[in-house]
């Protein structure tokens, strides 16, 4: 049990994995000498050398393609995409190659690689450096999608990703790197592939992931002050998604909302809300609500950026409305 940060937990996971498994290599822009744009890989090149910590040219498509080829031939590459916003240049390699190779080739050739990247708002980095694009990955069979929200998950989910026989897209949140928390290398927060309940409560279920988990937990505290007990569930592993625990929770409370930082249209929240609306229909007291990012690109102005994504206050207001039918002040 050690107190550490989300950033250092990820670094520790990489370090431990590289020590435990010589086939693990890192490849990406600035992962070596620079130590990573967000400092996640600092010092690893000194420990493992330039053959295992590979500073790549600014060639996102070929970086992912090279990781695929390395994975096909016995290595376990961790390819780093500096920002998830750059995934657009790699979607062919990711969705047509990494995701489909095992299937197209009849099971002969697997691609055991991890694509590490980070997304989300919080740095006034504007429209091309602040997105949340996990929905594109969710829609791609053959890919696994993992998004850690806690320090312990940052470590364990990455270690577990590095044991998978199939490609894992591991998306960190730039706003969580400095978050402190407890790392227990012997005890993961939950089983691989499963959501975890982060807070108990019988009045409403708030389902979220990544940084929005923390806004949801903050909202739950506000709700508690109003006498409303919210269960808060962290999805963690989004594709494939084990929705059984979600279904149980929603059937218990009859009220639920799904919170994402991404543009809400076509988001993970839409998909989860649709499934739960199908499977829990007879148990629902209220519609399953989606709370997400506005349907806009991210503006650079700090105030506008903040205003474009859900806050604890908004989540609280919506949940309270759902449970108590009390309209918030902003309701038109």
């Amino acid at each position, binding site marked *: 049990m050690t107190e550490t940060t989300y950033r250092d937990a990820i670094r520790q996971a990489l370090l431990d994995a590289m020590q435990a498994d010589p086939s693990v*290599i890192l*490849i990406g822009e600035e992962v070596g000498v620079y130590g990573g744009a967000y400092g996640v890989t600092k010092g690893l090149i000194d420990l493992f050398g330039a*053959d*295992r910590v*590979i500073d*790549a*040219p600014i*060639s996102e*498509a*070929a970086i*992912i*393609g*090279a*990781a*695929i*080829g*390395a*994975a*096909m*031939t*016995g*290595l376990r*590459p961790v390819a780093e995409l500096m920002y998830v916003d750059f995934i657009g240049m790699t979607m*062919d*390699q990711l969705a*047509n*190659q990494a995701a489909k*190779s*095992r*299937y*197209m*080739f*009849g*099971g*002969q*050739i*697997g691609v055991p690689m991890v694509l590490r990247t980070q997304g989300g708002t919080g740095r006034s980095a504007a429209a091309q450096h602040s997105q949340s694009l996990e929905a594109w990955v969710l829609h791609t*069979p*053959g890919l*696994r999608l993992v998004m850690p929200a806690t320090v312990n998950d940052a470590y364990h989910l990455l270690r577990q990703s590095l044991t998978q*026989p*199939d490609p894992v897209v591991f998306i960190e949140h730039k706003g969580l790197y400095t978050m402190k928390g407890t790392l227990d290398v012997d005890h993961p927060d939950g089983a691989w592939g499963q959501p975890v309940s982060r807070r108990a409560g019988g009045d409403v279920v708030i389902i979220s992931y990544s940084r929005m988990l923390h806004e949801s937990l903050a909202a739950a505290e506000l709700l508690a002050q109003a006498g409303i007990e919210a269960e808060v569930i962290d999805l963690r592993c989004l594709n*494939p998604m084990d929705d059984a625990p979600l279904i149980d929770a929603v059937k218990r409370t009859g009220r639920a909302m799904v919170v994402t930082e991404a543009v809400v249209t076509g988001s993970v929240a839409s998909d989860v809300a649709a499934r739960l609306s*199908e*499977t829990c*229909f*007879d*148990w629902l007291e209220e519609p399953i609500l989606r709370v997400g990012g506005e349907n806009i690109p991210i503006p650079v102005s700090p105030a506008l950026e903040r205003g474009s994504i859900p806050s604890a206050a908004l989540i609280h207001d919506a949940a309270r409305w759902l449970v108590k039918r009390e309209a918030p002040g902003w309701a038109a």
Partner: protein
Amino acid sequence: MTPTATLNTAALGRYATMRRIRSFEERVGELFLKGQSAGSMLHLSIGEEAVVGMTEAMKPGDTFTTHHRGHGVFIGRGGDPARMMAEIAGKEDGYCRGKGGSMHIADRALGHLGANAIVGGGIPHVVGAGISYRNASSGQIAVAFFGDGAMSQGILYESMNMAALWHLPVIFCCINNQYGMGTRVDRSAGHLDFPARAEAFGLNAARADGADVEEVYATASALTHAARQGNPGYLEIDAFRFYGHARMDKSPYRTPDEESQGRARDPLLAARVRLADAGVASEADLGGIDGDAAFEMDLALAHAIAATPPGLSTMFQDVYAPGTPAPTPQADRLTAILSEGARA
């Protein structure tokens, strides 16, 4: 033009492999005409058989990726025509269980990391394979086979730069058949000296006559030797696409003259004549080789037609590795929503 002196039984073997490729491709055409192929996206490599000069310069353990016109390359690396044809027919005992088809044949055992239906899609994979071999000092090389059309895909240059920068045991092999679908290479490239592009990225670059398999072999041997030392290379095989782009294409955009001149650059004919002239093989020997190839490929065709298609449930297999639950079939999902047992 290779001096006949250097011709030998290995050259005879290369002729035989080229003949097997052509016979195979002819049977693929038949499979389609019989309505037995899975779809019509079948790209024949007839006219490009001199690629055997490259595949023979490779060693056991070397790996490769190909483009959508990759049947010939794989036969050159030892692919089993029966399983290939079965895959093209979409059958269960094809190389990919009838899931991949002509454009997605692969064979991990023989080092075939996969044919690709995305132009340029398989090229960066050899960079990663090169990293594996470099780090393991295994002496293996990885070769990317692609067409002239891929010369317009940026990922090729990203890959060339990485190979040169990291001194990887990699070869980029462009089979230039002068066309990408209906576009002749001079309508897709602003400057036609492709080896100059590769050199500018730091590769050993060479062009070889696709009508002369021995020249291709000699050039490829030098490049593969250097690649094993960490000096990556680019080889362009200057060939001609004898027939249409795919089975439906009658090449209306080419003149009869252009076609007859192109087909006159036939690597099989050239090799045949020269092997005979050099006294390496008699007409009878060569006829025997041709007959054996025809017989072998007739069997492959018959096998593919007789083979059984995959069962519906195989659809859900191989999305993820064994151990990961297969995707829930929609019928089960709907049942879990609507069946009385699922309702309150």
